């Protein structure tokens, strides 16, 4: 996967580049918005990471120009502004996801990988499959090894999101934002409890678990035990 980092803080850009290299991804860096726009137009990146506050051309204007030229590359917007309306502005300008500084690198990596995956796989598949677990998005039914699993509507959406990103780490914040559309930070481990309930329904009666906890990062659903 090839990532373009558009960030004027060279320390932060280097930190991102190192992390991405460790995770096995290639990356380029641009120090201002104008250069970033040029590089994004000339090359074919899988994901763009764009800081909101940039010299020359600010992040949101850069994204708008890119979208006007019909470039559909997924974009993660980074910002020190955390309020809901800032987030909405970022997404309206054409960003696909919004992450507030300071962030944990695992959070950023999970989101970048999710964005890249979104580009590769069609979001429009009717049935998601992970091992012997099957989720039918049209009939809203879930089967494991041919046996039906009964889920609450919210549990269904939680599983749907996890399975759409099968094989990728999904953080608690990503679940909170995408499954519940909540943008606050609960003090209690609410998400963990929801996951453990879901786990009880899809994994408990089976020998091989599919839903795994990734320490310090989040959760992943995958068929092969690692």
């Amino acid at each position: 996967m090839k990532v373009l980092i558009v960030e004027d803080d060279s320390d932060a850009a280097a930190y991102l580049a190192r992390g991405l290299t460790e995770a096995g991804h290639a990356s380029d860096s641009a120090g201002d918005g104008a250069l970033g726009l040029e590089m994004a137009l000339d090359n074919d990146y899988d994901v763009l990471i764009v800081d909101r506050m940039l010299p020359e051309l600010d992040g949101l204007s850069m994204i708008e120009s890119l979208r006007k030229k019909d470039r559909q590359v997924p974009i993660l917007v980074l910002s020190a502004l955390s309020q809901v309306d800032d987030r909405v502005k970022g997404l309206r300008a054409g960003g696909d996801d919004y992450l507030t500084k300071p962030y944990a690198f695992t959070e950023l990596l999970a989101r970048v990988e999710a964005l890249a995956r979104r580009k590769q796989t069609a979001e429009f598949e009717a049935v998601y499959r992970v091992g012997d677990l099957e989720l039918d998005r049209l009939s809203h039914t879930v089967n494991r090894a041919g046996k039906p699993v009964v889920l609450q509507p919210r549990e269904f959406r939680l599983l749907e999101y996890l399975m759409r990103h099968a094989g990728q780490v999904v953080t608690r914040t990503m679940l909170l934002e995408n499954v519940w559309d909540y943008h606050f930070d609960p003090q209690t481990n609410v998400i963990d409890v929801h996951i453990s309930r879901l786990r009880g329904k899809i994994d408990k009666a089976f020998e091989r678990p599919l839903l795994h906890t990734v320490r310090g990062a989040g959760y992943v659903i995958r068929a092969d035990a690692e």
Partner: protein
Amino acid sequence: MAETVADAPPEGERRAEGRTPTERGEADRHRGIARRLRLVRTTAFKLTLVYLTVFVVLSLGLIAYISSTTADLIDRQLEASIDGESAELISEFQSRNLFRLMATIERRAMRPDASVYLITDFSGNPIVGNVGELIYDPAEAVAGEIFPVRYTRLSRAAEADEPAHRALAKLSVLGGGYRLLVGRDVEDRIEFSAIIRRSIRGAIVVVVALALVSWIFLSRSVLRKVDAIAASSRRIVAGDLARRLPTDHSGDEFDRLAQSVNAMLDEIERLHAGLQEVSQNIAHDLKTPLTRLRNRLDEILRTRPSPEESEAVLARALEECDQLIRTFEALLTIARVESHSAGVTLERTDLSALVGDMAEFYEPAAEDVGMRLETRIDPDIAIAGEPTLLRNMIANLLDNALKYGLSESGQVDLHLVREGSEAVISVRDYGEGVGEGDRARLTDRFVRMDAARSKPGAGLGLSLVKAIVGHHGGTLELKDAEPGFAARITLPVLA
């Protein structure tokens, strides 16, 4: 409150001190001019000018109308009496003869306030009457019509150079070439109009003079008040936040303005004091975790522990950082909400659905710690709100209940009911509750009842709840539910 600023000389005077006499004289002169200019610039002057203009124009219009209608009326009466007398005289001529008519006219012309009479023969020579010289426009002199003439009285023409009088007259043809002229003197009427015009001019002069005098007095008293307010304002701007504008309790516009400004200053002073306290708290409460963080990192540098050990220390350091970030985030949210700014717009929000979703979201977490959410939610309650803030508010209350509200039954109530025009959200646990003394401090920043600080949290939750409730125009009440702690929030319902 009724402080005056008499002890504070105006800025200009203070500046004038410490100069040479000539400089001061010059300065005084300039100030005199400036003061006069200032009078002209006042609102009182502009208002006086406007009212004066309107008054003068209206009076002129009214008087012009009255005098013209009065003149018309008098003219019509004159004309009627000329017509009447002409007809009478003509009928006398017709029923009797010329000589009787001449005798009648002779008699009438002799009276002291006689009208104008003249009979001429076929060649135009006067036969009888009291008219000496008669001047008129032949074009207007049509028999049977009334027209203006100028004349002199026969009796007095010889005595003095009396100017010709103005009159209205009617010419009638009698027959046999004789013609009769009957007229009425209009000098009195003209004189009457002139008197009216003169008195109007006099009245207007008096009115303008009075307006100018009242303007000067008004402007000066207004300027005095404005100067006092301006002087106080300058001192407040210079940092004397305890100072207030002078009020005289007269209830006039300036008094009310000063009282509003003073109320505003009270609020600003309160906020300012709060801000100072908060900055001190923040500095103190952030310094502690930062010091811990620094010490952990310092420890690794100094002792070079084994990779496993340093990993554990680093993980704890990271945890400290995350906690600090969360604290900042909460502080920023409180600041944003309390300042009512940042483009936060309240939108119509289905509170029933929002609270229901939050209950569903928290239910598994409650069960996980052996507690049970009892919900009672009235349907279809809508308020003007920001959903993310409202969720944050409820999440904080539920987080607290799950953290501190442990009890035998494990029950936590989450209720949303409608009471008249208010939506009431209450969250109640059946745990130990909070004593009365501590309760008052709960919404202060960084206050934690858990003295050992064994549970995570920055002590900002209820401060945030309070700020969010305030932002939505609601009230927050914290009380001892005996047993347990209860938070009761009221928010205005949208129709």
